[in-house]
């Protein structure tokens, strides 16, 4: 079928609507890190992650669980990719389960790995976008992707998802995040890592028709890394354990979840 949307226009639109909100999201959350305790930001990020995980596993057709035992090689491949996603990042971060406290001996590597972990699902999203741009019968890029409401939903998601990365940056790279000079450069690096898989997916998906659920399965696995990295600071800290502290962490978690839930409402 002849493409109804040109590659350059659709690719640039995808790039802009992914990279700019991602950078803005990182700036917001790391800026908030100057006023809000890292632990609470981690709770906020974890709230976002709960929804993100649902989204990503949904994109993988729930790892083909609806097929029962009849999925064959496809189903095996999907599940294997989930496993690879988990193992790959756990392997890359050999300090994952060390006893060091966040922010002390850790470095910029953790937010980098979280950016990869969260960004991988963009391969699937980008593929879907590229494929849609190449096969849609619409000549309007906004219409092709569900109109203004769906566009707003996407932009909001791309602001919120990198906040999981930003929360890890605030928690695990405390020394760097407090430096005014290197701060924006770090965020730029994190944005690039988050966006690259999405762009690769969009570019290849435009020209090649292939099944994107495999990428979502991989992304579901890698998100486990982000989950554990966001969860860890929730169980540490110098604040005494009180019901009030637990309530505060709970409320920040709900806040993060509610933000991404509201963003998803635009999509329905």
């Amino acid at each position: 079928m002849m493409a109804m949307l040109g590659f350059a226009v659709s690719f640039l639109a995808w790039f802009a609507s992914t990279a700019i909100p991602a950078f803005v999201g990182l700036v917001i959350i790391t800026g908030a890190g100057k006023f809000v305790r890292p632990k609470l930001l981690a709770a906020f990020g974890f709230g976002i992650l709960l929804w993100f995980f649902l989204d990503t596993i949904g994109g993988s057709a729930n790892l083909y669980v609806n097929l029962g035992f009849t999925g064959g090689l496809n189903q095996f491949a999907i599940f294997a990719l989930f496993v690879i996603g988990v193992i790959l990042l756990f392997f890359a971060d050999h300090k994952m389960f060390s006893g060091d406290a966040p922010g002390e001996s850790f470095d910029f590597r953790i937010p980098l790995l979280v950016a990869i972990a969260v960004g991988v699902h963009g391969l699937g999203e980008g593929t879907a976008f590229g494929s849609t741009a190449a096969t849609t019968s619409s000549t309007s890029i906004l219409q092709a992707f569900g109109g203004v409401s769906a566009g707003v939903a996407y932009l909001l998601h791309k602001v919120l998802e990198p906040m999981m990365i930003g929360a890890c940056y605030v928690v695990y790279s405390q020394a760097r995040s407090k430096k005014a000079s290197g701060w924006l450069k770090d965020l730029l690096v994190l944005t690039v890592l988050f966006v690259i898989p999405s762009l690769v997916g969009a570019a290849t998906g435009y020209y090649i028709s292939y099944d994107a659920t495999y990428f979502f399965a991989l992304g579901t696995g890698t998100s486990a890394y982000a989950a554990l990295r966001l969860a860890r600071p929730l169980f540490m800290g110098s604040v005494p354990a009180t019901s009030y502290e637990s309530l505060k962490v709970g409320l920040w978690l709900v806040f993060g979840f509610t933000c991404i839930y509201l963003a998803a409402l635009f999509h329905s």
Partner: protein
Amino acid sequence: MALLDRRVFVAILVAVVVVSAIIAVAFDLNQSRSPPAKQPGSFLMIANANGFNDSIDHGVPQNSWPIITVQKGTTVTITVYNSDVVAHGFQVVHYFDSSIQTIPPGMSLKVTFVANTTGAFRIYCSIFCPVHGFMQSGELLVQ
């Protein structure tokens, strides 16, 4: 390589190889799939980048599309074929919405129920995806 030590480099390399392999396999598998034949008396819905049965060309989301009209008491069979590159969901309010059903690319979902309640029931995709907006406005009319 100040920020990325050898372990991370190896992990990234493995990821690149894995992703390349996935693209190759997924591309190959995608080529061999074809939609199911329409069964007499059943409804066939094709999910793709243009929505359910080309919703985008039928004025959604302002208009409902596709619309399935049946008489009360009819046994309704709907086969949904996903010809897209991403998974799609399929739900019918009241009749088929008790669990999240997702259809992987190139696969079908066959749904059968008895239309025993009159009214208009929304047909929609239950998962988040870029063309999700076009799959929110289907309708089952039971008269």
